[in-house]
């Protein structure tokens, strides 16, 4: 019956939508719980430093190498397009604005979600599966404040620094291709970039984006790990969900923030 099939389809879409909304709500509630139990993380900041090392420092290689390549590609593509208009001297502006406004925060957040977010989820999920979180609770120590909050803040603090390093490395990549390889004038490359990039509207907005992405990725990663079914399959599924949900959240948040930033927040 076509009507039955249609109704079943609508019902399935409704069910799925409700589940997604419920999941988003649970993640936000978990974020609230994490923030409420973050005092230990700041009282014993060594716990956060340790997580900054695992999430941030150990992500440096992939961030720096990716930034270099993205910048090189931007230099090549930018030069190719701009020379049609006789504006190849502006390639530095194109590279810098693309990186600082968009690609730096977004691509580094996507890489961070894949590299560090999935690792956080897997680690917390495995701690749950091997009863380490239960053991902690039985010792009267809250796993949220001792395990989740330091990882959350480690991610939040790491993300903007990684995004800035990604952008800086990308600009170096763009310079290498445009100036060293193709031969664009280096004075024009740097001076036009300096004139066009605004500290408040470009750099600060980029940092704001990366902080928001850091919060989103860290909240999703810790939530998925904490809620993972305590089995190998459960942890594997949670890791996948972290990467998928984080990526979608980054892109959606980027769209919203970009719209506000271009229009102004008022």
């Amino acid at each position, binding site marked *: 019956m076509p009507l039955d099939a249609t109704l079943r389809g609508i019902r399935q879409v409704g069910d799925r939508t409700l589940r997604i909304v419920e999941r988003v709500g649970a993640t936000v509630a978990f974020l609230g719980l994490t923030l409420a139990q973050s005092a230990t993380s700041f009282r014993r900041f060594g716990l956060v430093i340790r997580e900054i090392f695992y999430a941030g420092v150990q992500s440096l290689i992939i961030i720096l190498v990716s930034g270099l390549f993205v910048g090189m590609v931007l230099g090549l593509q930018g030069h190719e397009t701009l020379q049609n208009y006789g504006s190849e001297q502006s390639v530095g502006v194109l590279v810098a604005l693309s990186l600082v406004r968009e690609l730096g925060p977004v691509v580094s957040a996507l890489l961070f979600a894949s590299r560090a977010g999935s690792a956080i989820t897997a680690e917390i999920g495995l*701690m749950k599966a091997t*009863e*380490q979180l239960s053991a902690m609770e*039985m*010792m009267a120590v809250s796993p949220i404040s001792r395990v989740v909050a330091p990882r959350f803040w480690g991610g939040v603090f790491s993300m903007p620094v990684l995004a800035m390093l990604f952008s800086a490395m990308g600009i170096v990549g763009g310079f290498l291709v445009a100036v060293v390889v193709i031969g664009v004038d280096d004075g024009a490359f740097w001076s036009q970039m300096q004139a066009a990039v605004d500290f408040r509207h470009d750099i600060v907005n980029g940092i704001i984006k990366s902080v928001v992405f850091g919060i989103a990725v860290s909240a999703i990663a810790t939530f998925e790990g904490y809620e993972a079914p305590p089995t190998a399959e459960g942890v594997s599924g949670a890791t996948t969900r972290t990467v998928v949900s984080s990526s979608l959240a980054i892109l959606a948040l980027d769209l919203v923030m970009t719209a506000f930033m271009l229009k102004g927040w008022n």
Partner: protein
Amino acid sequence: MTNLVEISDLNFGYNDRLVLKGINLTVPKGSLVAIMGLSGCGKTTLLRLIGGQLRAREGSVRVAGQELNHISQRDLYALRRRLGMLFQFGALFTDLSVYDNVAFQMREHTTLPESVIRDLTLMKLNAVGLRGVQSLMPSELSGGMARRVALARATALDPELILYDEPFAGLDPISLGVIGQLIRRLNDVLGATSVLVTHDVQESLKIVDYVYFVSEGVIVAQGTPDEIRASTLPFVHQFVWGEVDGPLPFHYPAQAIQNDLGLREG
């Protein structure tokens, strides 16, 4: 002798399935009591109820005079500082060394200087014979060693009540004997009270003071180890002597095998 644990008319279930029915149980101070039964009979659930990880549906669970059904999170955590728990596979924190695992609770709950914590930690490790592995990580230990380190960690703050969840599971005969003797000795030396959940009959009967047998969610027998060994109750006899035939069927309930295989009679 006063009771440290008192359970009366306890009912507990997951969703519609009742796991524990009308349980009445007491654990006198200073004693070592075993809860035995087949896998899935509800004994670990009972231990989790005593540890406050689960709340009873009906009835009362009192530990050290406090009713756990209505206890606040703060009071529960305060109570848990007086408890120790050994999990089935140790549940050691895999990101901490053996030394840090044992020192964990002292650092979390006391303001002792590090030099005192060091002495206490080494004494606890010495008590389980593993002072020499203090710098190893949990992944470098055998199953028996991990269980002994977990035992040192569970007794780190000299708890009044120690809960053991299947401490003998998966151990070789020598490790099994060592763990059994350690459980008895620690109970006596610390003046603690212990509840041991296990299905290892022979090892447990050597060390415990009293035994409760649980089957299908009810206590079907209880007594001292000698009374249990001499019991003529069919269930206890089958369980203690490991007989294949008895009140516990070999086959899980199912329809006739002819139906499953598609065979017709005649």
